[in-house]
């Protein structure tokens, strides 16, 4: 499978590349600055449709890891317009699969922070009004609209907190955010999203919480386990178990 990776040189992108290496993939890795990678690579600004369209030429699927959190103009250019450009290019090139990524608060924004447990992907989406959350939530809504209007599956993987498998000694036993995963398991989730039999999915737009198995009971990864076969290897136990 020929896979285009947008935002391939950020925090998550290289781990997606790593998860796909060794598999039956031909990768084209892109970012706003050309990544240093042994794979086919080029500089692509996701806010520029022509660049995204050109990069998507000949590809079978796309993974969008691009993100910008703070700048008022660029956040919308990357998180909203960039997602539109990616989804449109995927459709125009006849791709059947597009994997988008974002933060979990595109759905479960601040209204969910202090209340509710067992939160799953099916709750009504409310991102709140934060720039990062709402610009990414608009991008995710664009994914839903494209998948409802065109024959493409768009799988949205949601993350929040990326942690190293083992904490620094000073961080042991201090607990961690209740929506956490390692980069290694996150990259693996992207691989699973590229390989899942699309016929097994309930709709053409499915959202997955990618968090490891945590005892908090706050967020559920059951859907990712059930539909993608996600089986996180890093349990992050030394963060949430008391240090003895």
């Amino acid at each position, binding site marked *: 499978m020929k896979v285009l990776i947008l935002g391939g040189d950020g925090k998550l992108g290289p781990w997606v590349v790593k998860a796909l290496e060794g598999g039956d993939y031909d990768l084209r890795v892109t970012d706003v600055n050309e990544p240093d990678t042994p794979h086919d690579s080029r500089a692509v600004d996701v806010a520029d*449709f022509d660049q995204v369209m050109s990069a998507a030429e000949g590809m079978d699927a796309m993974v969008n890891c691009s993100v910008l959190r703070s700048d008022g103009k660029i956040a919308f*250019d990357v998180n*909203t317009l960039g997602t539109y450009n990616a989804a449109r290019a995927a459709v125009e090139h006849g791709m059947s699969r597009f994997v988008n990524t974002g933060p979990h608060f595109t759905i479960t924004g601040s209204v969910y922070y202090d209340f509710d447990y067992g939160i799953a992907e099916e709750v009504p989406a409310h991102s*709140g009004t934060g720039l990062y959350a*709402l610009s990414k939530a*608009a991008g995710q*809504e*664009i994914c839903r*609209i494209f998948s409802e209007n065109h024959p493409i599956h768009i799988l949205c993987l949601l993350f929040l907190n990326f942690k190293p498998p083992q904490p620094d000694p000073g961080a042991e036993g201090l607990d961690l955010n209740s929506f956490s995963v390692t980069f290694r398991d996150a990259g693996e989730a992207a691989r699973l999203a590229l390989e899942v039999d699309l016929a097994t999915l309930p709709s053409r737009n499915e959202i997955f919480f990618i968090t490891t198995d945590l005892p908090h009971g706050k967020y559920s990864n059951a859907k990712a386990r059930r539909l993608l076969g996600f089986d996180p290897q890093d349990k992050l136990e030394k963060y949430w178990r008391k240090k003895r």
Partner: protein
Amino acid sequence: MVILITGAASPLGNALAESLGASSAHTLRLTDRTPVETQLDFRQSGLDHDDSTLDLMKGVDTVVHSPFPQPFPQPLPGPLRGQAAGLSAASPADWIDSCTRCTYNLFKAAAEAGVRRVIYLSSLDLFLPYDENLVVNENWRPRPTTEPAVMAPYLGEFIAEEFCLEGGFDLVCLRLGHLVDHRQIGGQPYDPLWLDLGDAAGAIAAAVDAELPHFAVLHFQSVSTRSRFSTERAQQLLGFEPAVDFSEVPA
């Protein structure tokens, strides 16, 4: 009451300023990307992510926000399909930027400034995928296509709703039919979504002054046996009774 009208250079903005300005209870402030010659308080703005957008809000009680990316050309199209055909100069990026980023900046400034009510203008084109025989009203889920002129106004609704839910301001989302000036229809074939410009301006003005819940959605279009969508809720809450039903226009 101080009212800020965005998209003031458009024919709808003009008509709205005329309608709202007729009341001595209203003080108007106008804004647009392009300059407007007017005796009213006009401030040119791109609704960017800076203090100039916050400055627009000083003393404002109500905002009427038309998120569309450029003034409508003549003859008057509305914020909808007819309009989309006339707005060839606006790129998909223009539509998305105007309806998402600029709208976000405006709403953020409105929330920070303590604006009481925001009226967001959207499009009944969001419901065109439904079968024509269905009684589609505000209870039905919008079904935007990926056409930027349809999808982008919906994304603005999506953003507006989050600000409303956070309690920043009351939100009135008005979905308009296809705007036309009934005096300039010429030989155009009848469109079951038509809404006369004067009726639209009157209805929006009514929404400025009406007692409405914290979050209200209303559909406006001409009313006749040939109308595509129901406007019953607007009739109930605002007394919406458009003067033009286009009955003289053959199908």
